[in-house]
């Protein structure tokens, strides 16, 4: 029996740019228990429904998170549209799908870079972010913003993607795919990378299921859960299968995300080939009366948007459950028994976004 000690981890940490605090109970170099504490950056975002009307809340909702901003705006709009029984035009559905997948691409490439940085592979980190830059340029070209899209509105979308832009997206995606193939080989087959990822932080299918994890984190442990299969927006018209791995370790999480990059590229290509002509939005009149909740697949996993209105211009309640919120219990379980040096990498493998968890 080794000597027990408690090491505080975060909220500021050189490897992890997320404000989570963990008290790690160590026995020699092995973590035996983890006590998490969050709440350092609560912004009271949901209570802003008292001050902003339901049209303005789109812009508040999409500022829940910097990386999944589009998904948050889209999820909120979808929930309000469901309550108000608004059917948005087909073209708007396809445009939302394209932007959502561009958002997933930039999130996954960002995560790959952070992971490479986590295990000290600086050049791989820069290479990943260099590829991501192309996606950010596409987002800026089509929406006007690099991180915050601001193209969603209740009833559709605000901007169209012109045929020239769609063509440009396809050309850029070919290059992105070729570039990802290069880094994929390093992430999956390099000896030193494998030594940091393989067999580290293993969670079984049963454990992940019991702890309610979502997204690529759950899919890496063999759970076939992908909210896009529900067929919201244009996903119902597109052909794709959730990417699942059964190993449940950090390597599997990396593998799932890399394959999801190719999947997203494929979904965008399909959406561009099928996108119909038509209106971008429908006019919405009246106020929100009733309640509804929708589930969408954010890059980090399933996100839930609950909206309740009582016929006023201001919503009664808005509740957003982000993927990291669902993944935290599994993270705590995963850290038990791991080596102290692996803690930053293991936290990174859930792709944490504490800022959106605390809203």
């Amino acid at each position: 029996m080794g000597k027990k000690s408690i090491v505080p981890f975060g909220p500021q940490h050189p490897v992890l740019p997320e404000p989570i605090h963990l008290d790690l109970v160590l026995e020699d170099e092995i973590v035996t228990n983890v006590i998490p504490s969050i709440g350092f950056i609560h912004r009271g975002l949901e209570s802003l429904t008292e001050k902003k009307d339901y049209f303005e809340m789109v812009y508040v909702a999409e500022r829940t998170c910097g990386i999944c901003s589009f998904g948050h705006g889209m999820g909120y709009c979808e929930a309000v549209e469901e309550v108000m029984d608004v059917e948005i035009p087909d073209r708007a559905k396809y445009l939302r799908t394209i932007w959502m997948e561009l958002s997933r691409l930039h999130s996954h490439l960002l995560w790959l870079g952070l992971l490479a940085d986590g295990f000290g592979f600086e050049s791989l980190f820069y290479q990943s972010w260099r590829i991501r830059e192309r996606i950010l340029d596409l987002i800026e070209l089509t929406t006007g913003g690099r991180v915050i899209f601001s193209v969603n509105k209740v009833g559709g979308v605000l901007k169209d993607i012109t045929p020239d832009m769609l063509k440009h997206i396809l050309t850029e995606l070919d290059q992105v795919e070729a570039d990802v193939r290069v880094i994929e080989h390093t992430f999956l087959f390099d000896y030193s990378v494998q030594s940091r990822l393989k067999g580290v932080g293993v969670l079984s299918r049963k454990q992940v299921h019991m702890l309610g994890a979502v997204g690529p984190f759950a899919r890496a442990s063999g759970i076939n859960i992908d909210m896009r299969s529900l067929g919201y927006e244009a996903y119902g018209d597109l052909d794709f299968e959730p990417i699942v791995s059964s190993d449940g370790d950090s390597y599997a999480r990396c593998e799932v995300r890399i394959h999801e990059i190719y999947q997203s590229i494929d979904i965008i290509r399909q959406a561009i080939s099928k996108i119909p002509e038509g209106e971008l939005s429908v006019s919405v009149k009246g106020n929100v009366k009733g309640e509804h909740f929708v589930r969408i697949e954010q890059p980090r996993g399933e996100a839930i948007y609950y909206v309740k209105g009582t016929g006023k211009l201001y919503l009664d309640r808005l509740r957003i459950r982000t993927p990291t919120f669902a993944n935290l219990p599994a993270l705590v379980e995963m850290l038990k028994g791991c080596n102290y040096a692996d803690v930053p990498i293991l936290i990174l493998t859930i792709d944490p976004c504490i800022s959106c968890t605390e809203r």
Partner: protein
Amino acid sequence: MYQLYGKIGESMGILTFTGQVLKNLVSKPVTTSYPEKPAVYPERSRGHIEIDIDECISCGLCTRGCPPRCLKVNKVEGTWTINRFDCIACGYCVQRCPKKCLHIVPGYQKPGPAKQETVYKKSPEVMAAEAAKRAEIAKKAAAAKKAREEALAKKKAEAAKKAAEEKQEIQ
């Protein structure tokens, strides 16, 4: 050559990134030396809000629809004020403007030591034209009010006269 190094590395499971590293060493830099070389923004870039102030009718719809509440409109003074440091460039005011005199254009707000407001004031000619228009509307309204009052007084007088006649008949 770099491809050869990469292939050798990959076959051994080590140094798999060597090919890319060598390629990067002989390629042009991906980054640009900003700010010496100015950034190129796409046409849709949401940089900052601009206003055609002389087109503005000071209706105030933009101020009511601004999520960070960074806009102020003064109808009497003919001013439109924006705090660019609070503005989140969402473009909601542009959507709501009934005269389409607000635009979102490329170019970000430069940093500064304090949150300063930018005030736009209508030109004296537009102010004079608006004042004349307001005076005309007020004149019309006053005339209409006077006509209404006269009609009411006439109606009252007729009613009083009728009542007096009825009273006389009863007596």
